């Protein structure tokens, strides 16, 4: 199946969701001729039209495209998601040290290189942002640097 067709179908689905949730948007008191729902519905309509064009007239298949490194993509996405979910519960220093190991390894590091990168980044950016720049970072269960 052509990639453009998949994209078109996805666009139509997004437009359908936008219309389904946008159609009922009405202001209890209208002061102006155009209410809150017109603009989202116009955007949804354009998305739907673009989707329809892509489904009906997809572009030529691009042979030059590199094959997707599927496993690496899944590994990186998974690591990033886990990092973002556990960032607050584990605290900045622990979560950064732990999750930078797999992320660095996906990009060709040995495990100790990843651990070194993660540990150094975690401690130095905690000191820089939390202590110097007053950006509050989550401290995690043990508090502070540990």
């Amino acid at each position, binding site marked *: 199946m052509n990639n453009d067709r998949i994209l078109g179908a996805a666009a139509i689905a997004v437009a359908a969701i936008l219309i389904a949730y946008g159609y009922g948007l009405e202001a209890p008191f*209208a002061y102006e001729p155009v*209410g809150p729902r017109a603009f989202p519905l116009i955007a*949804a309509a354009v*998305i739907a039209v673009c989707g329809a064009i892509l489904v009906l007239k997809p572009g030529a298949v691009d042979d030059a495209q590199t094959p997707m490194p599927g496993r690496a993509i899944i590994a*990186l996405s998974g690591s*990033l998601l886990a990092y973002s979910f556990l960032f607050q519960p584990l605290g900045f220093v622990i979560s950064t040290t732990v999750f930078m190991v797999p992320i660095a390894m996906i990009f060709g590091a040995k495990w100790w290189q990843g651990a070194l990168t993660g540990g150094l980044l975690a401690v130095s*950016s905690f000191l820089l942002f939390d202590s110097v720049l007053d*950006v509050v970072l989550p401290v995690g269960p043990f508090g502070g640097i540990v």
Partner: protein
Amino acid sequence: METLGYLMHGFGVALTPSNLLLASIGAVVGTMVGVLPGLGPINAVAMLVPVVFALGLPPESSLILMAAIYIGSEYGGRISAILLNVPGEASAVMTAIEGYPLARQGKAGIALSLSAWTSFVGSAIATIGIVVAAPVLASWALAFGPVEYVALMVFAFACLSGLLTDQPVKAMLAISLGLAISTIGIDANSGVYRYTFGSPNLVDGVQFATVVIGLFAISELLIMLEFMHGGAAVRIKQMGRSLFNRSEMLFTNMATLRGSLIGFFVGILPGAGGTVASALAYTTEKRVVERAGPEGSLFGRGDMRGLASVEAANNSASNSNFIPMLTLGIPSSGTTAIMLGVLTLYNLTPGPALFRSQPDLVWGLIASLFIGNFILLAINIPLVGVFARMLSVPAWVLVPFIVVVSTIGVYSGKSTTFELVLMVGLGIGAYFLRRLGVPMAPLILGLVLGKILEQSLRRALSLSAGDIAILWSSPISIVLWTMAAAVFLAPLLLPKFQRWRRATITADE
């Protein structure tokens, strides 16, 4: 003469120690960012959005820093293009065509210094152009009402999808997705909650920083994975003579001038940044040289004129990009779109009124472009070797660094897990969209302009009590609608233009 007074005032703002320091930091960081393939100006500026707020910088200082990074990355992009044959960022694609062969002939030092010089000339011409053209355009645009704004934005969108990409439908899709995202949250006019799905996290909309970092920085990491498995490029170590001489400069002067002018005019158009400008300058220069005498042409085998015109053009374009951004509130590239979004975060309304209400910001920024270019020329000729060494930073150091800075930035806004997960989710989604050929810069433009477009539309229709005919009631709006239609339809009607575009624009950014 009034303009000169304002410009002097701007220099007063830009030359304060803190702003001068920020411009210098921006120039260094920008060059580094430009050198590193996979970390373009747009990602760097996106990652900076939350940082400037964390630092508590005033709006003019934030923009001075971001602008220095933006123009610095155009200087940096040429280094990896010449030494490695890998463009450090999208608009350096054409630089590699002439720059890398020159480097292989042992003229790397000449190519680097000459391109730094022509970059400087291009930027200087464009900044002078800004000083001349921007106040005129701004005073003219003050007459714009909501009706003209609606037409102007539609024209900007038409330019963006008509000029930028191979498939206008996909750019249009990206713009409308951006518009749809801009409607999330509470509607200012009626108080109605739109697309919040009952989540308190979405009541005041999606954080701008979360969207830009997700769409650019995070998705770029996934894109980088694809290039990981490609073979390593051969880096030129032999630098040769490090400075170009007088005859080489005279030889390339006309090419530099032509490139600068092309870049300047292309940069003003919405949607057409350095990538289009450098492609157009290259093809023009090649045609001019070959018409004059094909025997003297070394194009494709290391012609200095090609290199000079390309570098002059993309730097000129990235400076003249600021004209529509400052005067009309319409950004013409993804990076300036982010800067415009930053202005709205400071509760400033972008548009021609800025010239009256925020002279410090507007003229400080323009003056800092002059200063930034001098700093860039000064650091780029002697320190080029230091920047080239950046190329040996391994990806496994760079990527964790990007992840950590992005995460801290997004977290600093609202301190919720929701924003972090949204950032990663948007990044993964953007990766698939980019794989399917949907460009991200138009999406950001849609997001930044969405609120202004909706407000203008509603205000215009309130004036006419709901009659849509008001949208094409004034002469200016009719001209803009006609231009929009022409730009949008021309590529469909002119197959020759389409072929040219396909041949010249390979990368989209």
